[in-house]
């Protein structure tokens, strides 16, 4: 991943910086000159119409897509970067239980051979408890509802102790109770110093969750804070 520069940045709290980042899909330029800082402890909502380049930006940040120009600076090591894909990207017929999925978050630290050990499994249990999954720990993923599956996926990133977390529409096809649990856990992760970037559509969720908003439109990005985007400030106040 050549475009990743893991180096000291000016701001000690800045985990991720985008510098005049331009990204293309094939021959088509999708994003031009995106600038941004992502600090530890902040939740950034990534919004924009379909095709505005949200997923392209996420790919660029994850190093999946080589920038046409500009740079992505990241000081979070690979092992602490997590990416929660849209559920459709997963093979749900794969015979894996909730516990096994959650424990696979140990991959960056444990690799192929290291035993998870009792401490590891205790952590896994705690994570599943936190997400209300203990009743399903041995259930295969294919038999879960969308909400339960999303909790299990977030469990994996908790296990990984992710410091930079990207989520692509985590609340799509998810029941209201799960949304509450997910929001709570994400806020908790941010409070512990993670930088979180979420692709979102729902305005209410955005005002509740996001500290900052990066709005993508016609290939350019605009930064704002939740109260100023679209909705009246009063909504934001009542929710706050």
């Amino acid at each position, binding site marked *: *991943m050549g475009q990743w520069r893991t180096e000291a940045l000016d701001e000690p709290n800045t985990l991720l910086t985008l510098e005049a980042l331009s990204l293309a899909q094939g021959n088509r330029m999708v994003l031009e000159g995106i600038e941004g800082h992502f600090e530890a402890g902040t939740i950034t909502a990534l919004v924009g119409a379909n095709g505005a380049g949200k997923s392209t930006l996420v790919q660029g940040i*994850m*190093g*999946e897509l080589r920038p046409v120009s500009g740079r992505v600076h990241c000081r979070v090591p*690979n*092992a602490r*970067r*997590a*990416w929660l*894909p849209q559920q459709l*990207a*997963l*093979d749900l*017929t*794969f*015979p*894996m*239980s909730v516990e*096994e*999925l959650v424990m*696979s978050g140990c*991959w*960056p630290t444990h*690799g*192929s*051979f290291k035993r998870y050990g009792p401490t590891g499994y205790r952590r896994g249990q705690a994570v599943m408890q936190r997400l*209300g999954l203990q*009743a*399903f720990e041995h259930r*295969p*993923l294919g038999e*879960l*509802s*969308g*909400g*339960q599956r999303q*909790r299990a996926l977030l469990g*994996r990133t908790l296990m990984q102790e992710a410091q930079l977390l990207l989520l692509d529409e985590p609340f799509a096809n998810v*029941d209201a*109770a*799960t949304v509450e649990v997910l929001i709570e856990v994400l806020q908790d992760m941010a409070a512990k110093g993670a930088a979180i970037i979420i692709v979102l559509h729902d305005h209410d969720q955005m005002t509740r969750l996001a500290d900052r908003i990066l709005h993508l439109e016609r290939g350019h990005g605009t930064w704002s804070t939740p109260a100023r985007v679209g909705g009246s400030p009063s909504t934001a106040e009542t929710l706050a």
Partner: protein
Amino acid sequence: MIDWLFSPLIDFGFMRRALVAGLALSLVAPPLGVFLTLRGMSLVGDAMAHAVLPGVAVGFLLAGFSLPAMSFGGLIAGLLVAGLAGSVSRLTGHREDSAIASFYLISLAAGVMLISMRGSSVDLTHVLFGSILAVDSTALWLIVSVSSLTLIVLAAIFRILVVECLDPLFLRGQGIRGGAVHGLFLGLMVLNLTAGFQTLGTLMAVGLMMLPATAARFWSKRLEGLMGLAIAIGMISSVGGLLLSYHAGLPSGPCIILLAGIIYLFSALFGRYHSVFARWRRRVEPILPPDAHG
């Protein structure tokens, strides 16, 4: 009766060697097959089995009927086809399965042509369908070595394979290219196909990989269960097929694979999950307690 049934496996050296070879192959080929089915690559095994043919033929032309030469040739041809197909799909953006299909057909045609240029049609059937009498101790050493190596490598990449099957992006986020794991996995598959062709033939070897795996899916929903069952089915088919082959005077490869095929058909009809019978007597599970709803 039982004595009469099983005594050939003890009395005759070639049966003993064939038994050990069959069991060794059954230990590693079915788990590979389980991963193939889980990755939706069931037919890739079949394609690769055809792809090894020209290599086997070249080995045969250069060194005569020598298993190491033929296996090595097959291995090179198989890896070449896998590598070429992978590169073409990456360079052109075409799906990998269409690239593999194209290359294995080229490879198969080249192989059949090479064999018919020298040697008779008897040799061709031998290569395609295998012969148990030909497992000498060199062949046995080769098969057992391949099985051991496969077992070790599979253990080493097991976690990565599992994580990658479910969610390739997770690993890519960790800076691990799925391509390397995928390549290694294809390499293992080719290695096992070439090791299996002596007893089973190039075309039948893939049967010992796939049929136990597809049959096991009707009985288990867990990865360990699938692997264990697939190995058991493979071993039962190997032992039973060898005995059938001996007593009825039939070729060994088809006997082993047909036995595995019968187990597959039985599983498809009466298996615990998704079988015809399971669907017919489907029991509706009660509604979960309210807190279990997500």
